[in-house]
């Protein structure tokens, strides 16, 4: 199938490994990705400043997918996914708002009609690609790996607009891990926030959010934490040292994107999955993967 893909800001400007691994795995699973033309910010960073302008930005990107003739849009970043998903909910509920936004969109010959289904990496792989296709693509199963999953807040809540998975007991990413032959360990901090959104106003507190979660996961003896959001990855991987400084513990926890792990299980070379870009100590994990498969 053919889907439009929307990368947002953080992935194509900082979190290259996520983009690389998504671009590698999807075509091999029968999914052709087409980048949105003329895309802009999703609106999430503008919500705190001007909610109306944020809804406009979200609608703009959805309208581009409509104009390009797509029915499905893959928003791989959690923040973008929520922004687009929530905006489409507002616009579908409130015809007056939809009219106002469409007047703004007209200047760029765009129109929001609400015909697009918005997906995130996790529900797209779980619900659309599905178990049979994923399992069939696994040539190097990750048997023996004990992993911990982090969903990220913005694909789980609020369930009032619909979400990627159950808001209090999500299981899709856990299942996706198990389809690769690895084990997902249950843990009580599963729903805890990474703190990324506080980096703009209270970075010390943000690092404490991340540090406390990472310490709890490391104490479980997990081989790695698996996520699928570039902002969470920024906190857990890129800034793990700063996060560690807030807890007084030494953190050495490998952090990987689910699509990087999936790529490994499909036999895709590490460098093509951006595994040389993770800042956390993933080398030991990669040795285990080679040994187990």
């Amino acid at each position, binding site marked *: 199938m053919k889907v439009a893909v929307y990368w*947002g*800001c*953080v992935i*194509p*400007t*900082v979190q*290259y490994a996520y*983009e*690389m691994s998504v*671009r590698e795995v999807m075509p091999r699973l029968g999914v052709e990705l087409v*980048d949105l*033309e*003329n*895309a*802009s*910010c999703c609106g999430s*960073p*503008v*919500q*705190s*400043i*001007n*909610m*109306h*302008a944020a809804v*406009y*930005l979200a609608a*703009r990107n959805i309208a581009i997918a409509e104009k390009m003739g797509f029915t499905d849009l893959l928003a791989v970043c959690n923040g973008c996914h929520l922004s687009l998903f929530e905006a489409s909910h507002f616009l579908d509920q409130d015809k007056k708002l939809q009219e*106002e936004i469409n007047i*703004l*969109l007209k*200047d*760029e010959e765009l129109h929001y009609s609400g015909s697009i289904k918005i997906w995130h990496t996790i529900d797209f792989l779980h619900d659309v690609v599905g178990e049979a296709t994923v399992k069939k693509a696994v040539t190097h199963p990750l048997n023996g790996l004990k992993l911990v999953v982090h969903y990220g*807040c*913005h694909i*789980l*809540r*609020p*369930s009032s607009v619909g979400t990627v998975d159950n808001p*209090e007991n999500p299981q899709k990413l856990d299942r996706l891990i198990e389809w690769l032959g690895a084990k997902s360990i249950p843990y009580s901090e599963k729903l*805890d*926030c990474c*703190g990324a*959104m*506080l*980096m*703009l*106003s*209270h*970075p*010390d*507190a*943000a690092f*404490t*959010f991340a540090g406390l979660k990472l310490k709890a996961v490391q104490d479980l003896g997990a081989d790695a934490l698996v996520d699928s959001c570039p902002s969470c990855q920024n906190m857990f991987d890129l800034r793990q040292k700063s996060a560690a400084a807030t807890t007084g513990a030494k953190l050495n926890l490998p952090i990987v994107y689910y699509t990087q792990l999936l790529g490994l299980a499909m036999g895709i070379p590490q460098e093509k999955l*951006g595994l*040389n*870009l*993770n800042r956390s100590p*993933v080398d030991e994990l990669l040795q285990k993967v080679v040994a187990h498969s």
Partner: protein
Amino acid sequence: MSLSYNSMTATDLMTSKKPDSALRLRVLSKIGEQKPYNCYQCIRCTSGCPSMKMLELKPHQIVALTRAGFIDELINSGIVWTCATCLKCKERCPQAVAPVDLIIALRNLAVEKEVKVPESFLQSLSMILECGHISRPQPTITRKLEKIDREKLGLPKFREPDERFKAAFMKALEKTSSKESAP
């Protein structure tokens, strides 16, 4: 890099002020329905709030103070910028109040009234106006300390939206402030 707001809390500031019902209406108009009135202060939001542990954010207090009309006090205290937008309060409220939506509405009002807003939020906005995104592609390094960028990684060229975007986005920003300027 902490915020340089004065150290008075929202409740400290209340003692010297009177409720402002016009401002209250303006905040409520931003969240659609007047849900704060459904709150019975069960404090489920605050008990699950990660920013309560770290920064003493009390979502139930934001709801109560908004209802009482202490809007200036809320936005001047800076407390609305301590929310991590984890959305647990919105998910778990038995009365569908969504304290986080109120917090976002209060942040919007702080911007309109030009009360001090954390600079990083405004920086993101000016980057979007400049290049359509909150940043341009940053060079990075591998774990072996090799400098690398999108091109070397084999990723397609990063594209910024064309010129018409800026004008349209400016319009979207202006429209709101004029529409919501009247209480």
